[in-house]
């Protein structure tokens, strides 16, 4: 096995160690990781054992609340023209049912499961950013509860969970109901993204040594893909909520057809999030199924690699299916065909997983315990939902079924079979890990059968109700349509489902005993690390992983782990800490110091929630104060990070020494920053899509961009910012006497240049007479500039932060991480600013073509440069830069670039022969040809070393 980081795998052979552990080591570990002792410490706790349980608990609370709403709806629909709920109340309730189930239950529930389980499964002491997950949890809880309470004041949103404008625009929803949705959800998304960052870095960087990707538990795979999907999909809903809120508050017409907006833009943005969302919910649940089914069948998962591939494929394909929610909007045939094909394709990986589960059950012998029943029941229900999914992917059938009760049936089969049943299986299976007593098996069987029957009695008839013409989202229906009986049946089934959940709650109250003296433990005989004896510090010592099913394959593991015979048997520095490992092979890289409980993130969460909620009720001054307090709390929280280390390296057991500090791509902070920037970049990219989309609708309303001087000025300032962002950390690393001050000043200047660039952009557009309320162009350009301004604002705070660190003597080459991350952020912001500037000023103007002609060749050259750099650094991350695969990739890419250069040359040459239409043309073509030639030579020049490397 080649090493990824230079770590010698031979060292693993030292474990389990044989010498006796020192006296008091365990005591120290327990003290360092001790739980709350005083009442308020239950709130400031950040350990995943607490936050994870709170998180799952809160998600289940919202499940129950939204379930009660469902029962209210079913009561209303039991009879035609029933007067149980007034129309407006019903409309609010169905909107809240969908919204709460999707945003406050489903996503948080699976994320919570990850927070609770992943550290234990991966053999980490905690997730890499415990305060961040605590922040995400508190923001979600406070915001979610306040959002839900809007129902009691009749202020809940009433536009349906997908909030289509113009029904939700100011004209047709003048109340603040829709704002509750937009701001409430908008910020719960932030909490979801925070959790996703945590999970990605956690899975990639904090695994037990030796747990290479082929030994990564399937649930962790699912959570990794889930989190990556959140990073790509959620920016879309963040952007759409931002745009709609801007339209409502400031009258910027993104979705107003009369002024060049388009309601369909919302649908594209919403479903680009909304469909992956379904798989975002499904994948972690599927990961739980793939974990639980082998255990109840007492065998290994059949087709483990295929299941991993299937989950990856689901992740990719799910981003190509969003428009199947829009088959009835009058799309071009080509799009319809494409999305129909993709929607069918996405069911293939689901089929792979289903058959892998069946094969696993056949390979072993099923134990019909409660987790097993829920897993098999979920499988059956999910298959039925998948089949109706194939039906509605058939476009002609969808034209009939769309927005009817057939869809209500379909989506509940998919979500309940694909997520709720697996979640209950997971709760029954993993609860003994946190509770002193397991849940009752006898009750569990009753609950399962009631729930299974209740589900089918509720939703099976709805397929027919839909084919009989009943549209979804109706608060009542007329008698004599033949829908009465089916609706009564559905209502009866819903109450059976409700009874099952009630029984589960009662059983939870009877048996759930959190953090007793002893947990019930591994009653189902699971194979994962989470079943080793553990405490709040997770495992006593972190084992070397040699298989996918370590507890099954290494009978002595529990004893050796508990005796401290593996990595990190104590807390060598008297701090909370965990081993950070490499992403592919999980080789130990360094020891991360983890934070202790504090209250700043809790206050930060409360004030963040306060900012959004108070903004909703339009108390602007109070809202701004709350926002400033939130920023203060977060800065305060960050202030204590990245402090000097007493020791440069420590022994983490068996005489293996690792450093205590890292910066750059191997550090956990770098990964988190890069992922955050991807989120920001996605939002900006999608806003760019909105810009081009609205241009295609009403180009007649668009005005010419300001003259070129503004563009050149802006690009110049951004270039300065980029240089400073690169120069700051570089200066610090030189480690000269004045490095600290130079670095801090460079970062500050970089931030200032960003502010100046934004100001230039804004003033020149104002000067050109662009009015954000007048057209789709005004609205989207101002939206893009606002998004950039948000980043510039954060960058400015960071610039000041850098100077403050220098003032307090914290700018030293020994801790470059903070400066490096600030530099990364500023550099990204400069790049994003350049994207905004170039897009809005060059597209769709006539200059666009000239510019492209002049710079096309050089752009390809630049792309080649960047691409090869990226490929070789990926190779570096994998420490296999000399491997033929990476070289091959670089060569293929170089070939593509050569072809592109050739194409540019050919196009220009062809144009040079025919052109005499524009006065400028000979000039631009001349410049372009020169550039393309230079580019061609450049690409050849850079390809040569790659060839020679072989």
């Amino acid at each position: 096995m080649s090493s990824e980081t230079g770590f010698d795998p031979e060292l693993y052979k030292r474990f389990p160690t044989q010498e006796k552990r020192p006296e008091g080591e365990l005591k120290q570990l327990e003290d360092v990781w001790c739980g709350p002792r005083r009442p308020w410490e239950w709130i400031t706790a950040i350990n995943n054992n607490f936050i994870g349980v709170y998180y799952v608990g809160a998600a289940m609370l919202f499940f129950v609340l939204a379930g009660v709403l469902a029962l209210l709806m079913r009561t209303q629909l039991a009879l035609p023209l029933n007067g149980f709920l007034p129309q407006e109340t019903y409309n609010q309730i169905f909107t809240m049912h969908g919204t709460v189930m999707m945003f406050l239950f489903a996503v948080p529930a699976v994320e919570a499961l990850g927070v609770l389980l992943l550290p234990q499964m991966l053999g980490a002491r905690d997730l890499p950013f415990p305060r961040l997950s605590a922040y995400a949890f508190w923001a979600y809880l406070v915001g979610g509860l306040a959002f839900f309470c809007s129902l009691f004041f009749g202020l809940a949103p009433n536009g349906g969970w997908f909030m289509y404008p113009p029904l939700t625009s100011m004209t047709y929803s003048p109340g603040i109901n829709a704002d509750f949705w937009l701001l409430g959800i908008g910020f719960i998304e932030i909490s979801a993204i925070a959790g996703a960052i945590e999970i990605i870095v956690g899975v990639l960087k904090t695994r037990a040594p030796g747990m290479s990707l082929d030994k990564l538990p399937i649930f962790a795979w699912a959570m990794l893909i889930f989190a990556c999907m959140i990073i790509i999909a959620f920016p879309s809903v963040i952007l759409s909520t931002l745009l709609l809120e801007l339209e409502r508050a400031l009258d910027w017409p993104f979705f107003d057809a009369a002024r060049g907006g388009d309601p369909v833009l919302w649908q594209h943005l919403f479903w680009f999030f909304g469909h992956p969302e379904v798989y975002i919910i499904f994948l972690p649940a599927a990961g739980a199924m793939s974990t639980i089914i082998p255990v109840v069948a007492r065998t290994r998962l059949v087709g483990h690699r295929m299941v991993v591939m299937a989950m990856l494929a689901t992740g990719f394909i799910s981003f190509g299916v969003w428009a199947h929610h829009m088959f009835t909007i009058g799309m071009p045939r080509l799009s319809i065909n494409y999305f129909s094909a993709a929607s069918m394709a996405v069911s293939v990986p689901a089929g792979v997983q289903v058959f892998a589960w069946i094969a696993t059950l056949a390979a072993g012998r099923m134990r019909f315990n409660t987790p097993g029943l829920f897993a098999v029941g979920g499988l059956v229900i999910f298959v039925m939902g998948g089949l109706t999914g194939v039906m509605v992917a058939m476009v002609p059938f969808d034209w009939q079924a769309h927005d009817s009760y057939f869809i209500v049936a379909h989506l509940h089969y998919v979500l309940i079979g694909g997520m709720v049943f697996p979640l209950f299986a997971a709760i029954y299976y993993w609860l003994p890990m946190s509770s002193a007593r397991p849940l009752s098996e006898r009750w569990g069987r009753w609950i399962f059968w009631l729930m299974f029957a209740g589900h089918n009695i509720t939703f099976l008839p709805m397929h027919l109700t839909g084919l009989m013409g009943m549209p979804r989202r109706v608060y009542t229906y007329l008698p004599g349509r033949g829908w009465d009986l089916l609706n009564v049946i559905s209502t009866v089934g819903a109450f059976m489902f409700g009874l099952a959940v009630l029984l589960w709650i009662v059983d939870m109250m009877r048996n759930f005993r959190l953090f007793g003296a002893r947990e019930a433990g591994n009653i189902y005989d699971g194979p994962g690390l989470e079943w080793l004896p553990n405490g709040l510090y997770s495992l006593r010592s972190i084992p070397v992983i040699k298989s996918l099913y370590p507890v099954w394959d290494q009978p002595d593991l529990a004893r050796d782990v508990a005796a401290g015979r593996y990595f990190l048997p104590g807390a060598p520095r008297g701090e909370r800490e965990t081993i950070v490992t490499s992403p592919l092979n999980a080789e130990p890289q360094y020891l991360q110091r983890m934070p202790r409980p504090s209250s700043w993130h809790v206050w930060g969460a409360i004030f963040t929630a306060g900012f959004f909620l108070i903004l909703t009720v339009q108390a602007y001054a109070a809202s701004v104060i709350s926002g400033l307090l939130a920023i203060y709390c977060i800065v305060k929280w960050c202030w204590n990070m990245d402090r000097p280390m007493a020791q440069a390296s420590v022994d983490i057991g068996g005489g293996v020494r690792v450093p205590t500090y890292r910066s750059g791509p191997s550090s956990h902070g770098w990964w988190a920053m890069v992922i955050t920037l991807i989120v920001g970049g996605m939002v900006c990219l999608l806003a760019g899509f909105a810009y081009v989309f609205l241009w295609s609708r009403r180009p007649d309303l668009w005005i010419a961009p300001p003259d070129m001087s503004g563009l050149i000025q802006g690009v110049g300032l951004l270039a300065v910012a980029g240089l400073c962002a690169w120069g700051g950390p570089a200066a610090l690393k030189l480690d000269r006497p004045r490095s600290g001050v130079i670095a801090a000043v460079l970062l500050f200047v970089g931030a200032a240049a960003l502010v100046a660039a934004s100001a230039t952009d804004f003033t020149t557009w104002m000067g050109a007479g662009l009015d954000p309320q007048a057209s789709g162009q005004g609205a989207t350009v101002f939206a893009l500039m606002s998004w950039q301004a948000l980043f510039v604002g954060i960058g400015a705070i960071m610039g000041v932060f850098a100077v403050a660190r220098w003032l307090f003597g914290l700018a030293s080459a020994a801790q470059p991480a903070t400066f490096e991350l600030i530099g990364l952020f500023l550099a990204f912001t400069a790049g994003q600013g350049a994207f905004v500037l170039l897009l809005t000023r060059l597209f769709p103007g006539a200059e666009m073509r000239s510019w492209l002609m002049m710079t096309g060749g050089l752009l390809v050259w630049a792309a080649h440069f960047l691409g090869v750099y990226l490929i070789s650094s990926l190779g570096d991350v994998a420490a296999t830069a000399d491997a033929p695969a990476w070289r091959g990739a670089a060569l293929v890419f170089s070939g593509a670039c050569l072809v592109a250069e050739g194409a540019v040359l050919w196009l220009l040459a062809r144009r040079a022969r025919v052109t005499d239409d524009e006065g400028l043309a000979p000039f631009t073509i001349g410049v372009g040809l020169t550039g393309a030639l230079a580019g061609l030579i450049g690409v050849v020049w850079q390809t040569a070393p790659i060839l020679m490397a072989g």
Partner: protein
Amino acid sequence: MTTETAPGLSGWPPPVLDPAGPFAGPIQVVAWVLFVMAAVVLAIVLLALGVALFGPRKWKRRVGGERLVWIGGLAFPVVVLSGLLIYGLATGARVAAEPKPGEMRVRVTGEMWWWRVAYLDADGREVVQDANEVHIPTGQTVVFELESADVIHSFWVPRLGGKVDMIPGRRNFLRLQADAPGTYGGQCAEYCGGPHALMGLVVVAHDPRAYAAWRARQAQAATAVVSAQAPLALIDQGRAVFAASGCGACHTIRGTEANGLAGPDLTHVGSRQTLGAGILPNNQGTMAGWISDSQGIKPGNRMPSYPVLTGQDLRAVAAYLESLK
């Protein structure tokens, strides 16, 4: 509210599976193909699951390997789905072809919470206005131009074809055809706020001759038809009440001073089958009920209730409107 039911969607047989024209027929076939496919696949999965859980050891060994995943999870779905996809796309192309020149055109505009209907001539000009029901000749393809005046609605008459959304700023097309005379119920299928649930319509198909007669009558100005239920004196009183109550601010009755545009055109309201956009049968009793308590019958709709009218006035105005055949 009355327990009488307006003509409209009828649940049995399920309209999606009971097509009445060439644009719904192929979809019914698709639906049955899909049901059979789903039943067969479900049976296969349940069989495999049954074997996996309860089967004899020899059978289980056959099922319990990666081969099942390759065959059942990958190869089988790819084959089935490829076939379905081609079939689906071909059917889609057939039932949703572009409108052809020369086809009859009707513009239906979705409004909160009713349908404005306009019959267009060959040049696309509106020649006849109507509301909440569309009359078409049988055996002839009719192009529906679908627009919206406010929010997104969706036009769905399941026995005649699939649904198409009505989106502000866009014009969508839907081609439908009825093979036999009759009344076909429809419903708004996209949630459009408030009383979306109560936004129905009917499409009435006549044989071509009867259709021509209907259209000729519809093009004329309002004429009150005197009958036993609507004697002349009552009609005259109703006309006066209608004018005095300001109904003409929102409604048009061609040939009178009433020329409002906000609400449905009432020139031939007495000839319609339903009231309140497909929710009440149309007669003097329901008309009087609708006028006095439209907010009770269809909460949130744009027509205010007129509880101030006396019983006699109500009867008169209902008789007048019902006489507009």
